[in-house]
């Protein structure tokens, strides 16, 4: 049976891992390749690098980080942030990434998803959706809109509609981040997850708001997420990948056991 993946996310800027609520209060948290290798050793099922600087001059730095990581950590690598063309995606894959996540550029030009999927296969194309709850009259069902540029710009596009469209264009996976919850430690937005997982046939990765092991369980049991992603709670060492997996296993969720730690 397929295990539910536990994925640490490393926000990268200027060649270093930074932590903080996305884009604000950034603190240097170390070398990305080193941190990725440590997480892999602790049982991470996949590593996500998110290039939050996404400046053109940072591209070579990011490729260097990806290659150094791929030569040290033998777990899957997903890289996101600033990829705007199939040839930029090719460069990131050739550096050692298995999947590339598209966000702002895909919202601006959805055909990018189709072109990347045709060229590299759907399994390599993740569409990252940053979603924010929109105010609804009492009694109306909840709704979310897509936000881009790291949550700074609203688009007016319905997040569930965009999720379905992205999958139709060839996205093999969706990375769904609740911008309302991101960095707040109030738990994942499980209603958002469920609204999307009920409508698409591909795996959905839950992101944004995890505070502790019970939140991961809820994202899977109620949100039907295929994978759970978190950043700060792992970087701050508040919770380990092992403790998250232990809670998931106790709830009957299939997980990959963490490797035995050498004394």
């Amino acid at each position, binding site marked *: *049976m*397929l*295990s*539910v*993946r536990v994925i640490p996310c490393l926000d990268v800027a200027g060649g270093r891992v930074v932590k903080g609520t996305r884009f604000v209060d950034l603190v240097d948290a170390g070398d990305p390749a080193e941190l990725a290798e440590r997480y*892999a050793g602790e049982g991470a*099922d*996949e590593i996500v690098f998110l290039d939050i600087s996404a400046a053109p001059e940072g591209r070579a730095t990011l490729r260097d980080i990806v*290659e150094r990581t*791929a*030569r040290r950590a*033998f*777990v*899957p690598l997903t890289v996101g942030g600033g990829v705007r063309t199939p040839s930029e995606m*090719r460069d990131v*894959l*050739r*550096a*050692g*990434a*298995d*999947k590339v996540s598209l966000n702002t550029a895909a919202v601006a030009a959805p055909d990018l998803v189709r072109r990347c999927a045709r*060229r*590299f*296969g*759907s*399994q*390599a194309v993740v569409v990252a959706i940053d979603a924010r709850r929109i105010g609804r009259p009492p009694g109306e069902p909840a709704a979310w809109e897509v936000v881009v540029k790291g949550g700074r710009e609203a688009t007016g596009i319905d997040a569930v509609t965009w999720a379905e469209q992205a999958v139709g264009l060839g996205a*093999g*996976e969706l990375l769904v981040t609740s911008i309302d919850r991101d960095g707040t430690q109030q738990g994942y937005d499980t209603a958002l997850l469920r609204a999307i997982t009920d409508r698409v*046939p*591909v*795996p959905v990765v839950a992101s944004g708001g995890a505070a502790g092991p019970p939140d991961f369980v809820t994202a899977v049991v109620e949100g039907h997420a*295929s*994978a759970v992603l978190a950043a700060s709670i792992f970087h701050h060492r508040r919770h380990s990948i092992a403790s998250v997996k232990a809670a998931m296993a106790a709830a009957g969720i299939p997980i*990959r056991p963490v*490797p035995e730690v050498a004394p």
Partner: protein
Amino acid sequence: MTRIAVVDYGAGNLVSIDQALRVAGADVVLARAEADLGGADGLVVPGVGAARPAMDRLRRRGLVEPIRRWIAADRPFLGICLGMQLLFDGSDEDGALTLGVLPGRTVRLVDAPRLPHIGWNAVRRRRPHALFADVATDAPFYFVHSYAPVPAGPASADVALAVTDHGADFVSAVACGRLAGVQFHPERSGRDGLVVLANFVSLATRATG
């Protein structure tokens, strides 16, 4: 030192397989043309994505017949993911005709709860094989695919080395003589993946030694 040729025929990630084979003790050469196979003890065909563009690229690089001859000579061969699917007659994914060295077709996974099948899943062996020496019988490996081959013909039960469950069982490893194929990615499967690749390097060493 045992030399492993890794066929480079696309735009995918070759860093991981290159590094994983080096860690496993091999000398690795990326093969872009037939000449690159000279001196190799083992051949690895990796790959993700669709069959037709992969076959087109192999053809353009003049590698289709050399790969067929390599396998016909029962030399050590490992196909990974798409590289395993290409061994069969054809793929339902895009209707491509593939290498046809094993009878059967590559089909979409049936009864899968979600596709692509992405993540770690148990590879349950049906019989012992040197490729899996020192690996627990149902150890998890990393998968990322929507299609898998269905071996056909009188020897199909012998060809299927392992199965994995994603809604229904599919064949996740095949072996026949010195030919092997795995649907998962050993280069992305942690320690057990490195063990599988080291076992392949040992098979290649013994075959030539």
